[in-house]
C-alpha cells in the first residue's frame, strides 16, 4: 500500500477548473480518488449524471478531467471517462471491465485496466439502485463509488432515499403540516453487502488516510468494491464556508454516517464512532450546523450549544433513536463475514 505522502504527490485525474461549489466534498473525494488511481494502471471512469458530471465534463473544454497537463505518451497512464444516462454508471463500468477482460483473454490487450464508477446517491440509490445492485451481484471487478449528499443536488436539492429523517429538501419542505422528510434512509450498506460486494465501506476524505487506503483496497478487490462517501453539500445542507470537513467528521462521530469498512470473509469495523450514545457528540450539534434542520434546533443563548426548538422535542428524540439504531446496525453488520 502506498504512503499518504506519496499519494498526495500523485497526479489526480480530477483537475482544477470544475464549477462545483467551493467547499463541495465531491471535488475533494474525486481529487483523492484520482490520486490513488495514479498507480501506473490505465484508468477507465464511468460517471453518472450528478453535480460532478455537469460541473466538470463540459465540451469542448473538458477542464476537470485527465491525468496531467497533457496526454501521456504511455497508454498505461491514459484516462478514459464516460458519462451515460443518470442511473447507469455501474453498468457502463461493468461493460468496460468485461471488454477489457475479454480482450485480455484473447491476447489483444497486454496491459491492465482499472475500472471505476461514480454516481450520486440519487443516481445510485434511487433511479439507479437496479444498476448498483446487479453490477455488484455479478461481482464486477470495479470500484463503485457513491457520493452521498442525501439530495438530488444537481437538479436543485430534491429528496433522495439517503436523506436523513426530518431533513428539509425542496420536495420534502417543512411546513405546518410536515416536518421535512418522514422516511428513514435506505440501508445501502447492508444492501451492498447482501448484493455480494467484496468490499463495502462508508468513509469520507475527512478521514484522510483511511479514505486513501480504502480506495486503494477497492481498486485491488477481485470483485465489486462499493464505497459510499458521505458528502456534506454546502449548497444543499446550507452550512457555513469552510465547514465541509469538520461537518463530515462530526456526522461520522455523531453516528449519522459512521465510518464503516467491511471485506467479505473478514468482516468489518465501525471506526471513530462510539456505540454508547453518551460517548458520541450530541445529534443536536450536527443538526445545528446546517440550515436544512433549522426547523428542529436552535442555539441556546446561555450555553451556546444547540437544543431542540420548542415543540420539536419529539422529532429530536426520534432522531436520537434513529441514530442509535443506525450505529447498532453497523456494529452488527461488521460481524457479518
Amino acid at each position, binding site marked *: 500500500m502506498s504512503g499518504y505522502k506519496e499519494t498526495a504527490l500523485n497526479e489526480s485525474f480530477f483537475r482544477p477548473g470544475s464549477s462545483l461549489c467551493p467547499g463541495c466534498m465531491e471535488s475533494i473525494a474525486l481529487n483523492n480518488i484520482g490520486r490513488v488511481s495514479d498507480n501506473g494502471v490505465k484508468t477507465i471512469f464511468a460517471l453518472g449524471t450528478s453535480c460532478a458530471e455537469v460541473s466538470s465534463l463540459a465540451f*469542448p473544454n473538458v477542464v476537470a478531467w485527465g491525468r496531467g497537463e497533457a496526454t501521456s505518451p504511455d497508454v498505461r497512464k491514459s484516462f478514459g471517462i464516460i458519462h*451515460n444516462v443518470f442511473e447507469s454508471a455501474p453498468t457502463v463500468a461493468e461493460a468496460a471491465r468485461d*471488454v477489457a477482460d475479454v480482450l485480455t483473454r484473447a491476447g489483444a490487450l497486454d496491459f491492465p485496466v482499472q475500472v471505476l464508477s461514480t454516481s450520486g446517491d440519487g443516481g445510485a440509490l434511487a433511479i439507479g439502485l437496479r444498476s448498483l445492485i446487479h453490477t455488484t451481484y455479478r461481482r464486477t471487478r470495479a470500484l463503485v463509488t457513491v457520493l452521498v449528499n442525501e439530495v438530488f443536488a444537481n437538479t436543485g436539492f430534491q429528496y433522495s432515499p439517503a436523506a436523513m429523517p426530518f431533513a428539509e429538501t425542496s420536495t420534502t419542505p417543512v411546513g405546518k403540516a410536515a416536518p421535512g422528510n418522514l422516511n428513514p434512509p435506505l440501508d445501502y450498506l447492508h444492501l451492498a453487502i447482501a448484493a455480494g460486494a467484496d468490499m463495502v465501506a462508508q468513509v469520507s476524505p475527512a478521514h484522510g488516510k483511511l479514505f486513501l487506503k480504502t480506495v486503494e483496497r477497492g481498486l485491488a478487490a477481485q470483485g465489486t468494491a462499493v464505497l459510499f462517501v458521505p458528502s456534506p453539500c454546502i449548497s444543499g445542507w446550507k452550512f457555513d464556508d469552510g465547514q465541509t470537513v469538520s461537518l463530515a467528521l462530526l456526522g461520522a462521530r455523531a453516528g449519522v454516517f459512521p465510518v464503516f469498512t467491511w471485506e467479505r470473509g473478514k468482516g468489518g469495523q465501525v471506526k471513530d464512532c462510539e456505540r454508547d450514545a453518551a460517548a458520541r457528540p450530541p445529534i443536536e450539534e450536527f443538526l445545528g450546523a446546517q440550515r436544512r434542520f433549522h426547523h428542529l434546533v436552535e442555539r441556546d443563548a446561555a450555553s451556546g450549544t444547540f437544543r431542540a426548538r420548542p415543540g420539536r422535542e419529539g422529532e429530536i428524540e426520534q432522531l436520537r433513536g434513529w441514530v442509535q439504531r443506525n450505529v447498532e446496525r453497523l456494529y452488527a453488520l461488521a460481524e457479518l463475514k
Partner: protein
Amino acid sequence: MNQGPDRSAVLTPLTTLSGDRFDGALDLERVRDAHPHWKTEREILTADGNTAAAYATLQMWRCVIFPGFPITPSTKWIETVAARVAQEPGIRRVKLLEAEHAVADYLVGAAASCRDLIFPTATSSVGLDHMTETTRSLGASGLGNVMIIDVYRATANFPLCIEGDPSDTLAHRDDGFIQIVARGAQQIYDTVIQSPCLGMQPDILTPTMPGYYGIKDSHRSARLVLEPDRDIHEFQDAWIRPCPLPGLINGDTAFGNCVTSRHFQGFKLAQKRRFERVLEVLPRIGADFERRFGRPGLSYFENVGWPADGRVDLAVVGMGPDFGTFEAIRAEEEARAGLHLAGTAIRLLSPFPREALRRRLEGARAVLVVNQAHHGGRGHLTLDVIDALSDLPKPPRVVSAFAGLGGANVSEETWRAMIDAARPVIEGREVPAWQLFHEGVRL
C-alpha cells in the same frame, strides 16, 4: 468582437477534440484469430427469423460479448446465441443483464471501450421502450458498433399484445438509429451481417437497428443459406476499418460530455449529416453483398411488378412479410381489378429514402400505403410517402390504409379490399383520409 468557437469545430464535434488514440494499443487480430469458426462451407437449412439473426451475429468475429434480456418474441435470439456459446470453449460470452435498460447501458460502455468490436442485442416492444433513455443517447453517440435487433411487436399493454406489428420500431424513428426492415429468414440473416458495415463507416458512426416482424417472421421457418464464417469476415473486413476515433481502452478521451446549447446544436447538426450519409453508402454495401453472395443486398426498398417506364395505375407501398401476400396475388389482382399494379416494400426506414421513393412513385396515378401500426393521423408510412411525393408538380393521390394492427393477418381478402378501396381515387373521386381494414373487410 467575440467570434465564438471555430465553426468547423462546432459542426464536427466527433472528429475534433475527441482526445488521443493510441495506435497499436489493441491487437485485434488476436480477437479475429480467436473466433471459433462454425461454418466452413456454405450450408442450407431451415430456420426461423430469430435463429437467422442469431446465427448472423454468432458468425461475426467482432461479436465477442452478447448482452441480452429476454422479451417475447425476440427471446430466441439470446437463447440461440447462449446455446451456441455454451458449446465453445473460448473468449466469447453471453451477458445476461437485469433489464433492457441495463442492456442498453451496457452496450454504451462496451462499444465505447472498444470501437472496433460489434456489440449486438435483440429486443422488442416495451423492451425497446425501456431502453429509450439510452437509445436516444446512443443515436447521437458516434457508436456505430452498436446493433439493436428489433423484433417488431405491438407496443401496447392495454391490452397486452405479443404479436408483430411495427409500432415499436416506428415509435423509435427519432432515436437516431439506422432502421432497416427485413422480411424472411434469409433477408434477416443478410441484413444483420450488413448493418454494422453501414453503421461503422467513419463518416456515419451511427448505431443500427435491423428489424423484422415478430411471430410472422421471428417464429416462421424458411430456407436459410448460411455462409462460411470466413466469407462473412472478408465481406465485413472490406467495409469495417479501424475506427479513427479513440475508445476508452485505446484512448485518452471523454464520452458523453455536458454541452451548452450552441455546442449541442453543433452535435445535432453533425448527427443529422452523418445520418444522411447512409443514403449514399447503403446501396454500395448492398451491391457489394450481392456481388459476393449472389443475393440482393441492402436497398432502400424492394420493387414488384414495375414496368420499365414506371407507369402504373396503382402503386402499393408497404413493408414486412404481409407484403409477400400482395406479391403473390399481384398478377391475379391486375386481371381482376383491371388495373396496372405494382408494389414497393420499404426496407430503409430511417433515414427515409424520400427522393428515391419519389422517383419510384412519380409514374403512378395513385398510391396505396398500407400502415400496420397505430398512428394518431394517416399513418407513419403515409406521411413519409406524402412527403416524398410533395416535390412533384402533380403528385399522385395517396390512399391510406391501416391493416394488420396488432399483428393481425393481412389476408388476400384484405388486400383485395384495400385495392378496391383505392379505385375511387384513380377514378377521380374522394376517399377518407384513412381507412381501416381487418379480415377482408373495410371497417
